[in-house]
Each structure stands twice: as C-alpha cells, then as structure tokens.
C-alpha cells in the first residue's frame, strides 16, 4: 500500500529534479552596452539596447534574441557553420533532413540555403527571396538579403539577413518579424546589433 502511494511521489520529484535546472536557466537579459559572445563562438555583440536571449537554441551553433517575445522580433545568430552542417537542429536526420552547407558554397548560395532550410523546417509553402546585394560584414565581403514568407499560422513574415563565409564557414545574423507592425518597428534595432558585431 505504502509502496504504491510512494511511487508516484518519487516519480514526480524525479521529474521536478530533471526540469528544475532548465526552468532556472530560462531566458536571459542581455544588457545594453555590454559585450557578449553569441552562439558559442568568438562572434561578439555590444547591443545598444536591452534584449532577451531565449534559452532554446534553434541549432547547435545558433542563438536567438527577441525584444517582445519569440517570433515577434527575433534576431538569430549563426556562427561557425561548417560544410556538411545544417543551419538549424534537424528534427529527424533521416526523415526530415535539412539542406547542408557545402565546401564549395558561394555567398550567392546563402539565400537559397536559408530558404531551403526554412521551407523544410517550418513547413512553409510560400517563400520568396527579395533583393540581395554585396556588402561588408566582419571586415569581409558579405551578402545582405531580404525575404518574405507565410508561416503555417497564416502570418506573413519578413526577414533580413547578413552573411559571410570565413574560410568556408558561415556566419550569419537574421532578423525575422511579422510584416505587420513589428518588422518596420525594430529593423533599426537589428541593424544596430549587426553594426556592433566583432569577431576575434
């Protein structure tokens, strides 16, 4: 009798013990003016305003910040993505594989790499790439591009990204927000973050 009563209690406390650390290390505040390394790399950012860092990483070498909440105004950092690696964490390596970066990938391939990844990972049927142009990022020739897509929740979202290939490895910062209101409102905050990016 006692045993059968005790069992669920033990199970619950075990579950609590497992989930507790995750709950404690939830989202972090990124304070304005402080330099932080992002996406577990040597890429560092000194944001001119406060941001929230989400504890859930979209990929192994990725990190997402937001101002008002996930998917409202997201900045995602991807760093050191090597040839053969996908941009995001694959849901299933076998059943839902994502496109991989290639050793012969060019800057012009990056928008299509992002498009393929988004389409496959988020189940997006309507996605269109906008203008792309050459620019400088981390002191190297880079690509800046825009895109627009409809998520399964039927919201049109817009994105802007900047990317560079350093010895074949991809470094990219993206900004994704609903086209309605949020994209325009915080695009300059994103650009300020990009402008503060430095790499060791």
């Amino acid at each position, binding site marked *: 009798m006692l045993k059968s009563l005790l069992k669920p209690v033990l199970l619950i406390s075990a579950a609590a013990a497992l989930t507790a650390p995750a709950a404690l290390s939830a989202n972090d505040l990124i304070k304005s003016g402080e330099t932080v390394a992002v996406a577990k790399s040597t890429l560092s950012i000194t944001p001119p305003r406060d941001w929230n860092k989400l504890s859930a990483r979209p990929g192994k070498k990725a990190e997402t910040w937001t101002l008002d909440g996930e*998917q409202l105004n997201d900045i995602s950092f991807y760093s050191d993505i090597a040839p053969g690696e996908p941009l995001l964490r694959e*849901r*299933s390596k*076998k*059943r*839902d*594989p*994502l*496109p991989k970066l*290639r050793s*012969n*990938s*060019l*800057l*012009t*391939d990056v*928008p*299509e790499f992002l*498009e*393929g990844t988004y*389409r*496959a*990972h*988020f*189940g997006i*049927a*309507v*996605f269109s*790439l*906008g*203008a*792309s*142009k*050459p620019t400088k990022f981390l002191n190297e*020739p880079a*690509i800046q*591009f825009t895109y627009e897509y*409809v*998520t*399964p*929740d*039927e919201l*049109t979202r817009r994105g802007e990204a900047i990317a560079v290939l350093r010895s074949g490895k991809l470094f990219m910062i993206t900004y994704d927000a609903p086209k309605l209101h949020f994209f325009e409102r915080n695009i300059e905050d994103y650009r300020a973050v990009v402008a503060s990016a430095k790499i060791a």
Partner: protein
Amino acid sequence: MRPMVRLLAAVAAMATLGAANPEREFDLPTYTGAYQPQNVDERGMWMVDDESERLTRDSRLVIRDEALNNYVHSVLCRAVGNDRCGGVRIYILRVPVFNANMSPNGTMRVYSGLLLRMRNEAELASILGHEFAHFEMRHSLDEFRRKRSTSDLLAWTAVLGTLAATYGGGSTQSYGDFRISVYGALFRFSRDQEREADILGFSYMAEAKYRPSAASEVWRSAMNEADATSTGRALRGQRYDKTAFFATHPTNLERADYLSALANRVPGGEYEGRNAYQAALAPWLDQFLEDQIKLNDFAGTEYLITRLGAEEWTAPLLLARAELYRLRANPRDLPNAVEFYRQALTLNPDLPTAYRGMGLSLMRMDRKSEATPSLSRYLELKPDALDADMIRSLVAPQ
C-alpha cells in the same frame, strides 16, 4: 435517403465480389443535390466543417487564379457530371504535397502538389472522382459515427486535432506534421469504404469516357515516389502513409492491382486530355516545380520529374531538374546540373534562370572563365534581377 445510399453501396460491394450483374456494375446511382445534415452527429460535423471552410477560404495559401480554378472545376464537372458538381467549392492550396480531399459540406481541397504530379486530365479526374465518391456516399459521417460509438474521446480528439491544425499549430510545424494533421483526422477511411469509392469513381470515369487505367497509374506512381524518397533517405521499410494522400487512404500494392483489374472491366473511353491539362497548368508549372524542388527531397523529386519527363522533356522540366541537382550540390551533381541547364537552353534560349544556374554551378566547380559568360548573359536578359548586384560582384574581376 441514407438507406438508399447504403443499399447502393452494398450492391456495389457485391458487384466487386461476385460481379453478379456485370452490365450494371458501373451504373451511376441517382443523386440528390442540396443535401442538408439530418441529425445531431451530422449537424455537428457540418458546423466544424463550415468553420474550417471559412478559414480555408480566407487562407493566404489559396490560389485565386480564376483560369486554373475554372479548369479544375470543369474537370470535376466532366468527371462526375454537371448535376453533381454544381454545389462543390474547390480550393486550390499552394502546398507542395500530394493530397486532395472533400469534406461533408461539399468543400474540396486540392493541393498544388497534386496538380504537379498529374500528367493529364484523366489522372486528375480519377482523383477528384474518387474524393467525390467518398463525399457522395457520406463516408466521413459513417466513419465518425463508428469512431464515436467505440470511443467518444477518440472522435473528439480527432475533431479537436483538426481544428488545432486549421488554426495553425505554431511555426515549428513541418510538412511531416502537415501530412498527418491538416484536415486529415476526419477523413480517414476504411478499406471497404475505399473499395466503394473506387467503384463509384470508376463509374464516373466510365460515364465521362476518361481512360480508366489512369487511376491505377496514379496510385502506382505515388507509391513509387514514396519508395524513392525512402530509398534516397536510406530509410528501411516503405511507409506509404508518410505520403499525405495515403495517410487518409489506406493502400497497398494489392489495391493498385485491383484498380488495374477494375480498369480492365470498366467500359470507359480513351480520353486523356493531356494537352488541355498541360495548357491549363502551364502558367503555374514553374512555381509548383520550384516549391517541390525546395522541399529537400532529392530522390522523390527526381522520380517525380523523371516521370513527368518520360512523355516529353520540356524546358521547364529540364530547368527544374537542373536546379534540383544544383541545390543538392554534391560534387557529382554539378556537372549534371550544367548539362540539364544546357539542354533546357537548347529548347528555350530565353531562360534567364538557366543562365544563372549554369553560371553558379560552373563557379562552384572552379570554372570561372566558363561561368562568366553565362552569368553575364543572365544579367543582360534580366538587368533588374533582385540578385543582380550580387551576381555582378561574382563576374567582376576581384
């Protein structure tokens, strides 16, 4: 009304088993239009369905091209007859998945992925007819009732699941989930119901003088494509229910076989409507191909494109195949991509995308001197291209 349908269904089922009266086997039952839900179960289902239709109607995924919509509607009308098709609302959804369904209130959803896979009107008519047959026999209601009597919880899970999917279940939904969830839960059919729908579907085909064997060809190719996807991803075991259409339609090889057998018995015609179909699809073909290519399913897509190309390799198909190879970009894929671009350009020298793709592929193969003329040609043909500045930076001496 309903006992009549049951009776006819039973007669139809008997006809398959024993072919008791071969001449009447594929006669169409009489049809009453403007049907209204009769009891609490059916009214409940219709209420959910009406709401779901309202969301579908307003969806940004709906393709509102009048010509394409009229054409698909005309194929349904030709297949099932004008008296039947009148009240049906067809929504063509831009979703690169092989699927179509028809819900109890007369809403038919046709996915762009289905239109891409059909080679002619007869193939499309066979699918639309089959879905309409489920509708005419009110199979989803029977199935709903059966589930409800065994387990209310299960039925309501199905209903709520459908609603959740319709309202959009967050942005982390993949096509994998899509296949199973979207509008799917209410439209799973039993094997007997499938057989009934197949027989009624063939009756429509016969009446409309379509070539009946188109139906079994569609099933076979869908299974082959699922096989190709599995093999390409090195998956063991073939799970056809991973294909959207099969998730709601139990199937196996046996079914493709009995469809062939039925096709041989049906006194159908020979009409295929290949030209009419391709003309109607032409304005959308490039878009649908692009949506498919970017799914990152190389083997399945390669099978699909090759099947479409088996009849005739057109420039859009060759271009799509080239893009597929370029996007996978294994070292061995790039020379193939270049070759397919070249073939596409032979058929149609006015394809800026082909010059772009060929140039980028050559560039990735470190053949810059060959790549440059190709990219320059792209810029000549499309000086205002969205990526013109980027391409120019590749061409310019560094």
